């Protein structure tokens, strides 16, 4: 029998790509708007703030769903320690992006520090995303393995 696509462990990968895209673009737009503030389009900074805001919200939701998936995949994958490291770096990224987002809105003069926090968080996000990919592509986390004869698909 082919398992459902609405399994508990599949909500996390369904959502996880949104914060990756939103926070990466939001950070680049924000830095671009600050570095090239005289020549960049006027909508760049508000766009960056919107992307970062939605990205931060989706990141925390993704972390919550990841914790739900963890207890399912850790029972079957060969190296469950990777999920813990993946989780830790996601938290670091979440805290960093949240701090940068709040700083940008409330302490506007700390632009350089905000830029450095965004870049560091981007590094944490990249590493966490890499670990997430390794969980799927090296360990088959949350992946259904069809039978050799594929009879369940007939």
């Amino acid at each position, binding site marked *: 029998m082919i398992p459902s696509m609405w399994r508990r462990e599949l909500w996390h990968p369904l959502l996880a790509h949104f914060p990756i895209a939103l926070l990466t673009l939001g950070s680049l737009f924000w830095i671009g708007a600050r570095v090239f503030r005289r020549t960049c389009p006027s909508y760049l900074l508000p766009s960056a703030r919107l992307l970062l805001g939605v990205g931060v919200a989706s990141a925390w939701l993704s972390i919550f769903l990841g914790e739900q998936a963890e207890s399912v995949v850790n029972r079957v994958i060969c*190296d469950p320690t990777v999920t813990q490291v993946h989780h830790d770096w996601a938290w670091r990224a979440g805290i960093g992006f949240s701090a940068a987002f709040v700083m940008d809105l409330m302490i506007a003069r700390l632009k350089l520090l905000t830029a450095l926090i965004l870049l560091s968080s981007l590094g944490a996000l990249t590493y966490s995303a*890499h670990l997430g990919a390794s969980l799927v592509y090296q360990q088959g986390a949350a992946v259904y393995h069809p039978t050799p004869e594929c009879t369940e698909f007939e």
Partner: protein
Amino acid sequence: MIHRLLATATFAAVGVLTATGLTAITTGSQAHASISTFTVQGKVDKVVPAEKEIYVISDADGKKYEYYFTKNTQLIQAGRAVTFDLLTKGIKVKVVAQRKGKRLDPMHVEILD
């Protein structure tokens, strides 16, 4: 001037992050297939009843080990089978687990208290 400094700092930070990320990504380890038993004696640090999961801190090395009970896991106390709800934080246990890669599937969990 400030723009140049900010741009230089940005490029330097991106360079460092990229190098760090690439180093982390390229240092993957080779898997070695092995199935063996692994015994840990220590104190229960955390119990997650909904997941039938326990964390045990080993007396021997002080490390924290995570165990998800399987349908084959036997939980015993004084030679008798007992239920999962007897496991609480702080009690002493001895866990014999089957090691599959770096995953530990508990086979026998003995409550020592």
